[in-house]
């Protein structure tokens, strides 16, 4: 089976505490995978290792057949990433931000792709707005447009709808689902919204304390825990990890 993403034995410790502890993850082409877990479970650290932004202490990552970190640039040609917490570059209009990223992804003629991307998510009216003028929800949507401009083979989304109102979140979910279906895009998404995960994903991977504690089809995973919904699985895992959070990467240190 051709895997879009293969990670084996990923570990990462910050100040001696393991944030990610032996994660293995294989995602086949066309799969839509939800990476779930309570705060501090290691989801974002795992994503950033899968994207080459953080180097794992041990383990290997291969994206689209390219080994990280050596072939990061080649791998990222086929990857799109957006996160609810990421701002847009300042002092640029939305169309300028999108054109810049289109160029970074090697798109020959960025303009039609930018327009198509804005239309796909119903935000053409934001085309000439300054990035700094957008609401957090609008910024998130533009971030997703940015991540999908080049029709990536693997789309990685970290909490994409966390700051969106239900109406916009629904539109974004539909847009993502439609794009994945129509273009055969593989999706890896983190979210705390279990309803969203059940709608968008066909497979979920639960992390707890940096370890994979469940991996399978959405209905299978809930059944494995002997409960009905992913929401209950999430609550059960979160309860078990209450106030036992690993530290974030070092925040400050002075020269």
């Amino acid at each position, binding site marked *: 089976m051709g895997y879009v993403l293969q990670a084996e034995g990923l570990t990462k410790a910050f100040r001696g505490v393991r944030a990610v502890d032996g994660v293995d993850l294989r995602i086949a082409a066309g799969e839509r995978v939800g990476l779930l877990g309570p705060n501090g479970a290691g989801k974002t650290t795992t994503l950033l290792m899968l994207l*080459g932004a953080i*180097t794992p202490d041990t383990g290997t990552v291969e994206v689209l057949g390219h080994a990280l970190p050596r072939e990061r640039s080649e791998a990222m040609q086929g990857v799109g990433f957006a996160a609810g917490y990421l701002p847009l570059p300042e002092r640029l209009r939305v169309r300028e931000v999108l054109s810049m990223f289109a160029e970074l992804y090697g798109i020959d003629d960025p303009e039609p792709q930018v327009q198509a991307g804005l239309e796909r998510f119903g935000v053409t009216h934001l085309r000439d707005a300054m990035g700094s003028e957008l609401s957090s929800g609008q910024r998130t949507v533009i971030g997703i447009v940015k991540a999908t401009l080049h029709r990536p083979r693997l789309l990685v989304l970290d909490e994409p709808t966390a700051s969106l109102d239900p109406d916009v979140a629904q539109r974004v979910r539909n847009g993502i689902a439609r794009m994945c279906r129509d273009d055969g895009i593989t999706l890896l998404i983190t979210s705390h919204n279990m309803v969203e995960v059940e709608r968008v994903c066909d497979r979920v991977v639960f992390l707890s304390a940096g370890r994979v504690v469940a991996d399978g089809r959405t209905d299978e995973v809930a059944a494995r825990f002997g409960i009905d919904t992913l929401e209950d699985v999430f609550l059960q895992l979160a309860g078990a990890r209450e106030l036992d959070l690993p530290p974030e990467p*070092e925040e400050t240190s002075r020269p």
Partner: protein
Amino acid sequence: MNLSWRRIRAVVIRHYHVLWRSPHRWFDVLVWPIVDTLLFGSLGVFVARQTGAGRAGVSYLLAGILLFHVIYQSQISVSVGFMEETWSRNLLNLMVTPLREVEYVAGVALFGLAKLVLGIGVVALAAWGFYSFAVSDVGWGLIPIAAELLLVGWVISLFVIGLVLRFGQSAEVLAWGLMFMAMPLSGVFYPPSALPAFLRPISYALPSTHAFTAAHRLLDGRAMPWHEITLAAIGCVIFALLALAFLLRMLRVFRQRGFVTRFA
């Protein structure tokens, strides 16, 4: 390694937009060059009148500040260009694209060249307009000297970027601090022999010192000082290799310790 001109161009265009929409950034390109020219030009005129030393002192000061702006503009363009990404928390956005580190640095350095031409042009025009000092009178010998100082500016900026990657935004002050430490040690306006004796070995170890010494020789009307230019070139290569090694090490630490989350 396949470098992409398109990605480099995207970085250049991004920083063009930032400069165009940030009036305060024009201070570096238009205002400080004029302020510095006025300051050092007037100081030179005053000292010349007091001591009866003639115009030689004025030329030293004006040529010195013009050449110092080569370091200043090239260094600030790259350092502040990178810091722009940290201020707007755009680093992670860039790190998950195909953009290579070397392409990013090439992009900001290339855009910095445009700012450098503007900044130096302003100094040269101000020196000519206010003090009748024509940089062209010094001759073509200034070109290799300016090229070496351009490299010195880029080398300092690589150190600054490495420090910001390692220590976060608290290290940003070094973008200006390192350069102004280099200014007196490099003998921008005077020969290194004017420095306190214990600082002279440090001064002679800097490529910028030899570049400025070469400029002073040209101002004195002597032949092209190839010896000093060669020493400066060798120093530039050594410091450039050290800066690259330092930056690569800091990038590795940055990724290992997950420091990208500081800027996201």
